[in-house]
C-alpha cells in the first residue's frame, strides 16, 4: 500500500462557549491555521472531508454549515458523521485511492449550543431503552461501576487522571480548563452519577480542528515536516449494553491490535512514545490504556500512581490535557491526532514531551466507547 502523511494541522482554542462565532467561523480559523502550518493555499487542497453531527449541531446536513469555510466550494467534498478520527480515516483513504493527493479534514462542534443530555439520550434505542432517560454520563457511570467492580479500581485511582490532565493543561494554551487540583478535590466535587464526580467528567465544549493529509508523492512538497501515518484501524462493538461486557472494550483491543499490525509494532509498551486518547471520563483513560495493550488489564492505575503516564514520565498520556481539559465532541479525536502530530514534530511548545518518535492518537464513537479508532503516527517514514 502507498503511504500518506499529515502535513499540516490547525486547532482553535477549546472553549466553553464561542458565543461570537458560528460553525463556519470556527472552521475558517482552523482551516487557515492548518494551511499556514502546511505552507499551502486552499488551491493546493484536492478534496475536503468535513466531520460533524446533525444531532450535536441541531441541523440536518450539518456539513453544509462549514463547507464553504472549509474551502469546499469547487472541490470534491464529503462528510463523515462521527468522531474526527473517523473523518480523518476516510480522508486518508481518499488521499490513497488514486483520485486525489491532498485531503483537508475538519471536525467541529459547539457543545455550548445544545443540551448534551438530550443529545446523547438520543443515541439510545427508541423502542427499548430511550424512555428510561439515560444519557452519556449515566451510561459511562454504569461502565465505570462495572470496570471498578471487575478490577478493584477505587475512586481515588480514577481521580488521579483528572489531577494529571487538568494539570497538564497549564502548558497547553489551547486547553479550556487548566486546573490545579488534588485527588480530594475531585472526590469532593459534585457527584453527578455514582461514581462520576463533576471533576471525573469532561465538559462539553466548542472547538474546531483541521488536518491535511497528503499522499507520499507530495508529502514533502510543502513547507512542513511530514508526520507519517504508520497504521490505523477502527472497530465497533455490539450496540445494546446487555450484549457487551462493559468492563472491557473488545472493539478497542481489536482496533489497536490491527493498527499495530499494520504499523509493524510488536511491543507497543516499548515502541509507543506518546499517547493522546479519548478521556471523556477519568476511568476511560485507564481502561483504554489497558485495552490498547499499554498496561496490563486492571494495572493502569498503579502505573499512573507511579508517574508512568506523566508528561515527564516514560509514556506521557494526554500531555495536552486531553478531553478532561476541554471536550469539543466530534472534533475531539481530530485534536488528538493534531496534538500527536505536533509532538512528533517537536512543535508542541511548553507541553512538548522529550521522546517523541512514535505516537498513538485515539477517538471514540457511541455510548461507553462502543466504537474506537486508533492511529499510529511516526516521525520517520
Amino acid at each position, binding site marked *: 500500500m502507498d503511504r500518506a502523511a499529515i502535513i499540516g494541522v490547525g486547532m482553535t482554542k477549546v472553549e466553553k462557549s464561542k458565543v461570537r462565532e458560528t460553525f463556519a467561523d470556527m472552521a475558517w480559523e482552523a482551516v487557515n491555521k492548518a494551511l499556514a502550518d502546511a505552507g499551502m493555499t486552499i488551491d493546493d487542497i484536492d478534496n475536503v472531508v468535513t466531520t460533524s453531527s446533525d444531532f450535536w449541531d441541531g441541523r440536518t446536513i450539518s456539513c453544509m454549515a462549514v463547507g464553504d469555510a472549509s474551502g469546499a466550494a469547487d472541490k470534491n467534498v464529503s462528510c463523515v458523521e462521527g468522531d474526527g478520527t473517523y473523518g480523518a480515516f476516510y480522508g486518508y483513504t481518499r488521499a490513497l485511492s488514486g483520485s486525489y493527493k491532498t485531503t483537508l479534514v475538519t471536525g467541529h462542534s459547539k457543545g455550548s449550543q445544545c443540551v448534551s443530555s438530550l443529545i446523547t439520550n438520543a443515541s439510545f434505542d427508541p423502542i427499548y431503552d430511550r424512555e428510561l*432517560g*439515560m*444519557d452519556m454520563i*449515566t451510561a459511562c457511570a454504569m461502565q465505570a461501576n462495572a470496570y471498578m*467492580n471487575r478490577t478493584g479500581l477505587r475512586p481515588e485511582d480514577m481521580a488521579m487522571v483528572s489531577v494529571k490532565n487538568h494539570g497538564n493543561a497549564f502548558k497547553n494554551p489551547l486547553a479550556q480548563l487548566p486546573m490545579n487540583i488534588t485527588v480530594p478535590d475531585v472526590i469532593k466535587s*459534585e457527584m453527578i*452519577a*455514582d461514581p462520576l464526580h463533576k471533576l471525573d467528567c469532561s465538559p462539553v465544549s466548542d472547538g474546531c480542528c483541521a488536518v491535511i493529509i497528503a499522499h507520499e508523492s507530495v508529502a514533502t512538497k510543502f513547507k512542513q515536516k511530514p508526520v507519517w501515518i504508520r497504521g490505523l484501524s477502527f472497530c465497533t462493538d455490539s450496540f445494546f449494553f*446487555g450484549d457487551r461486557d*462493559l468492563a472491557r472494550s473488545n472493539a478497542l483491543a481489536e482496533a489497536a491490535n490491527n493498527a499495530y499490525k499494520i504499523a509493524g509494532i510488536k511491543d507497543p509498551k516499548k515502541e509507543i512514545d506518546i499517547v493522546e486518547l479519548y478521556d471523556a471520563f477519568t476511568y476511560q483513560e485507564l481502561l483504554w490504556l489497558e485495552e490498547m495493550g499499554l498496561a496490563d488489564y486492571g494495572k493502569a492505575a498503579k502505573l499512573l500512581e507511579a508517574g508512568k503516564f506523566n508528561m515527564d514520565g516514560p509514556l506521557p498520556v494526554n500531555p495536552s490535557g486531553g478531553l478532561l481539559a476541554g471536550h469539543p465532541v466530534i472534533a475531539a479525536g481530530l485534536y488528538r491526532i493534531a496534538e500527536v502530530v505536533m509532538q512528533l514534530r517537536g512543535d508542541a511548545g511548553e507541553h512538548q514531551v522529550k521522546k517523541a518518535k512514535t505516537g498513538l492518537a485515539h477517538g471514540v464513537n457511541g455510548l461507553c466507547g462502543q466504537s474506537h479508532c486508533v492511529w499510529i503516527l511516526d516521525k520517520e517514514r
Partner: protein
Amino acid sequence: MSDQFQGIEPMVYQSKINVPYSWWAGDTATRFFVALRDEKKITATKCGACGKVFLPPRKVCPLCFTENAEWVNISDEGTVLTFSVARRQLAAIPQDRKVPVIWCLIKLDGADTAMLHYLDEIKPEDVTIGMRVKAVFSEKRKGTIRDISHFKPVK
C-alpha cells in the same frame, strides 16, 4: 476576533428542534410488548444456529446473521451486572422520576444478554453488583418498556 466587531454584543437566538417521531417497533418488538402488556410475560428470541437467547428480542442473530424463529419465556428474576445512579437531575431523565435514579443491567434467568431498566425500593448505597432482583409490573400498561415499573431486590 478582529477590531471591526469591537463593542458589538453577540446575538444569541433561542430555538428548539421539533421533529415529531413515531417509531415502528416492527413485528418482533410488537410481540414482545404485547406479551409484556397483556400477560406480564417477558419473552426473548433464540438463535437456531448458536443457541443464544437475546433480550431485547432480535429478529436476526447479530452474530450468526440468521433469522431467530424461536421464542422463549424468560424469568422475571435475574442478577444485576452493573448499575448507575444519577444524583443530578439530568435533562434526559423523565419528568416523573426524581434523583437519585438507579438504572441497572439485569441478566434475567434464561436470557444470554442483559436488559436495561430501573432499580427501586432500595437505597443507592445498598446496590451491589451480583444482587438478585425481580421485575415489578406497572398497574397501567401500554405496551412500552415501562410496563415494567422497575426491578426490586429479592432476598
